[in-house]
C-alpha cells in the first residue's frame, strides 16, 4: 500500500489494476513470478517499457502449466506473436483471464480460442478430435473419438453448419455451471 517499489510507476500500476482483475500486490507478486523464470532477461525496472519476451519453453515450465495438456495452446492464445513467447503484459493478461474474478463470457471467449487448434474461429471436427485426445491422453479408440465428436457437434451446433462457432460455444458454456470453477488457475 505504500509506494516503496520502483519497478512500475504509479500510473502503470493503476493501468494494470484497471485493466486486469488483480490488485496492486498481486501484480507485483506476478511480476516476481515472471522474473523468476529468467532473472537475467527480465529487468527490475519497467518504468521505461522494456521490450522483453520470454520464450515458450520457460513459460511452459511453470509448475502451474507444466502438466497441463493445453499449455501450448494457452501460451499461443495469450501471446502477441501467436507462438507462445510472452511479454509481461501477455503474462498478466493470461493469469487475469484465468483468475477467479474474470466473468464467464470473457473466459468462454478465450476457452474457445484455446480449443480452436487451427485458428479458423470455428471448432471443427479436427479441433474436437485434438481436444479429446489431449483430454484423455490418446486413450480413447478411434471409433469412440468419432462418436463423441459427432455427438458434441450434434448437441452444441445451433445453426447447423457442422462446426461450433463462438456463439454456439458461449451458449453451451452458459448452461455449464462448473465452467467458472474449472477454468481457473491459482497463482
Amino acid at each position, binding site marked *: 500500500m505504500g509506494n516503496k517499489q520502483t519497478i512500475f510507476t504509479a500510473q502503470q500500476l493503476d493501468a494494470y489494476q484497471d485493466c486486469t482483475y488483480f490488485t496492486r500486490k498481486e501484480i507485483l507478486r506476478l511480476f516476481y513470478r515472471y522474473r523468476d523464470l529468467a532473472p537475467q532477461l527480465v529487468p527490475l525496472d519497467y518504468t521505461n517499457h522494456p521490450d522483453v519476451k520470454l520464450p515458450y519453453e520457460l513459460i511452459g515450465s511453470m509448475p502451474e502449466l507444466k*502438466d497441463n495438456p493445453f499449455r501450448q495452446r494457452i501460451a499461443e492464445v495469450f501471446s502477441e506473436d501467436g507462438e507462445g513467447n510472452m511479454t509481461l503484459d501477455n503474462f498478466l*493478461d493470461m493469469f487475469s483471464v484465468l483468475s477467479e474474478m474474470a466473468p464467464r463470457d470473457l473466459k468462454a471467449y478465450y476457452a474457445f480460442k484455446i480449443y480452436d487448434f487451427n485458428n479458423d474461429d470455428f471448432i471443427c471436427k479436427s479441433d474436437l478430435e485434438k481436444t479429446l485426445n489431449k483430454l484423455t491422453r490418446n486413450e480413447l479408440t478411434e471409433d469412440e473419438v468419432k462418436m463423441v465428436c459427432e455427438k*458434441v457437434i450434434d448437441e452444441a451446433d*445451433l445453426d447447423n453448419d457442422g462446426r461450433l462457432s*463462438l456463439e454456439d460455444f458461449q451458449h453451451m458454456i452458459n*448452461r*455449464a455451471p462448473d465452467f467458472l470453477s474449472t477454468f481457473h488457475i491459482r497463482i
Partner: protein
Amino acid sequence: MAHNVNFDLSHPRVEAGLESPADEEGVHDSFSQLIAEESQKEGPSDAIELQYQQRNPEDKDRDNVAYLSPSENRRWRIGSDKTGEEDKGRQTDSLLKDSWSSATLKILSSMPSRTIGRSRGAIISQYYNRTAELRRRTQRRASIKDFSRSARPSIRGYGVEVDTTDSAEKKQERLIQNLQNLSAVDRVRLLKEMPLNLSEKKSLRRLTLQMTKQTRSSSNLRCCSYLKFHIILALRHSWYNCLSFLHSLHLWQMPLKRVSGRFGSGVLSYFLFLKTLLFFNMFLFLVLGSFLVVPQAVYPPEQLENRKSFTGLELFTGGGYFANTLLYYGYYSNHTLHSCSKNNISSPPKPECDSKSLSYNMPLAYFFTIGLSFFVTCIILVYSMSKSFGQSFRIDKSNGMLAMKVFCSWDFKVIKRSSVRLLSENIRTQLKELLGEAHHRHIRSTISDKLVRLVMHGLGWILCIGATAGCVAVIYYFSDYMHKEQLKSSQNDSGDPELLKEASLLALPVLVSFINLMLPILFQFTAWMEKYNSPSLRTFVSLSRNLILKVSVLGVLCFHWLKRVAGSADNNKAFKCWESFVGQELYRFLIIDFIFTLLATLFGELLWRSFSDKVLKRNRRPGFDIAKNVLDLIYGQTLAWLGLLFAPLLPAVQILKLLLLFYIKMSSVMMNCQAPSRAYRVSQMTTIFITLLCFPSFLGASVCVTYTMWRLPSSESCGPFRGNKTMIQAGKQRIVELVKENPNLYFLAEAHTYLVENPLVLFVGATIFLIVIYFQSQVVDGQRKIIALLQEQIENEGEDKKFLITRLQSVHERKRTPARNLTSQDSGC
C-alpha cells in the same frame, strides 16, 4: 437436428482462387460493408441473372423463387404442397454436394459470422455497440430486447446509427467517446471485460483518460460535480486499498493451492467452506466480544460463590473453573453498568454517578446484540445462497451433457502429475459412460430386475431409518436417565467425588458423537450393498440419510435442553441457572465432537492407509468423502449457533476448533488420501451445502433461540434477564424503563407498537412479498419461452444461409453451362 452442410475448406478447389480466412483484408465487421464490397467485386451479372429468372414466368424454377425460405414458406407458398416438398428434397440433396465453386467458397469464407470475433476491429465495434447500449440504458429503462449477448453484429435492436461503414480508427474513436461518457465504475468494468490484448486495453484507457481530462479542463464544471468527481476517485482509491489489504491477508493461500493442485476443485470446496465458516464465526466473535464480553469484563460482577480451582477437566466439561466466567450466560449482570460503581455492584448506583459516568444497559445490550448477530448472519447466508443458486441453476433445461463434459471438465487447477493422470482417466471413464448410456438406453431391464432393485432400495431405507430412530430413542432415554441422576445427586449430595460427577457430564456428548461416527459407516455399507445406477443418485441418497440422522439427533437434544432442563429449573438447585448449564452442555458437545473428529481422522484415514498399503498391498488410497465432512462442519456450526445465546464466547471456541481442524484435515488429506476417482459437480454441491447451512442448520438454531427467548422463563438468580419472566418480556420492560428515562425515544416505542406488533402490517408485508415472488417466477417463465423462440430463430437463420448458398452456387453453375440459358435469356429480353 437437420442435415449438416459440409463446408470443407480443405477441398482441392479451395487452393485455387481462395484467399485465406486469416487474411485481415478479407475480414468485415458489418453487413453493409460486405454487401458493398461484393457488389463491387462480382459485378451485376449474378444479380441480373436472378432478376431475369424471376421475371420470366415460364421458367421452371419459378417454384424455387417463390420458395424463399422454410420459415417464410408458410406465408408465401404459391404452388401445391407437393411441389414444395419436392423442391425441399432437391434442395437437401444439393446441400450434400461437395463441388462448390471457388467463387462460392470465397463468399463463404468472408461471411460476417465467420470473421466476427476474430479481428480486433470486430471486437472494438462490438464493444462500441455495448457501450452505446449501456449509455442508452442508463438514460431510459431497459427493454425486453436488451439481453442479447451475441457476437454477431445484429442489426436488430441496436438502431441504425451503429451500422456504419466507418474504418477501424473511426470506430475506435467512437468507442473512446462512449467510454468517456460512462461512469468510472462502468468504464473500468467494461475495460476489464473486453477480450482484447492488455496493451490495447491500456492504450484505450490512456486515450479515454486523456480525452476525459481535455473535456473536463475545457468545460466549466460546476463546483458540486467537480467535488463529486474527486469524491468518487477518492472512494475508488480507498476501495482498491481495502481490497489489497484483504487480499494480502491471504489466509491459507499456499495450502489451498497445494490441495487444489493435487486434488482438484472438489476437495478444495470443503476447505473453502471451512474458511467461510471461519469468517462467520470471526464476525460473531467480534460483535459479541465488543458489545458483551468487553464491557462485562471491565466491570465484573460480584462473585457470590467461590471460584473452584482449575483442574484439567474443565477444558472438556466447561464446568468447574469455567462455570462462573465470561464464558456463560450466568455471569452477565442484569442491570446497567456504570463506570464509577466498580466495587459496589449489588446495591444501586450512587446518585452522583449518573450524570458524569458512562452507563451501559447490559440486558438490553445482550438482547439486541444476539438479535443483531442472528439477523446479519441470516442476511449474509441468504445472499450467498441466492448468489450460488443463481450461478448453478440454468433456465433452459436442454441436454448437452457430452459437450459440457468435453469442454468444461478439465480442471485447470490440478497441477500434480499423478493427479493430472487420474483426471484424464476420470474424464475418459465419464465419456465412455455417456457413450455407453446413449447406446444402452433402449435396453430395458426386466420387471423382475426392477422389482429386486426396488426391494433392495426399500430394505436399505428401512434399515437406515430404523437405525436412526433406534439411536434417537437411545439418546432420549439416556439423556432422561442422566438428567434424573443429576437431580438425585445434587439433592442428596452423595459421597461421589466431584471429579466423577463432572466426568459423568461427558457421557451424553460421548454417546452422541459415537453415534454420529458409527451410523454413517452403516449407511455407507448399505449403499454399497444397494448398488446404485448413477453416482449422483448415490451421493444424494447418502447425503439425505446423513442429514436425517443429524437433524433428528439435534432435534432430540434441543427437546432435552429446552423442555427438561429448563423445565426443572425451579425444582433443583443444580439447575437454578439452567442457561449456563445448557451453555456448558453445548461447549462439551463442541469439544467432544472435535476430539472424535480428530480420532476418526487419525485412525480412520491413517490406519486405513497403512492397512491397505501393508496388508492388502493395494496402490489405491482412500478417497476423501467430501459430503460427510461438510455435513460434520454444518453440524458443528449448528451447535455453535444454538449456543450463542447461552455462551457468548462460544464463537471463540469454534474459531479455535476450525483453525485446528483445517491443519489436521489438510495434513491428513495430503498424506493419506488420493484424488477422487469420481466426478464431482462442484458448483451444484456447493449450492447444496450453503442451502443446508441456511435451511435446516441456521433456521433450526434461530427457531430454538426464538423459542427460548419467547416462551421459556429465565432463571431467577443469574444472567441478564433475572426474574421469572421470559426474556422478551424482560427486554420489553427494560425498553419501557428506558423510554421513561428518555422521553425522546417515545416515538420509537410508538412506532414499534403500531408497526411491528400490529398483525395487519405484518400480513400486508407478507402479501406484498409473495406477490413479488410470483411476479418474478412469471418473468422467469417468460424468459424461458423467449429462449426457445430465439433458438428456433437461430435454426431458421441457418436454413436461410444454406438456401442462399445453394442458390448462389446453382446460379453460378448455370452461368457456366452456356447454351441453354443464353438462348432462353435472349428470347426473354
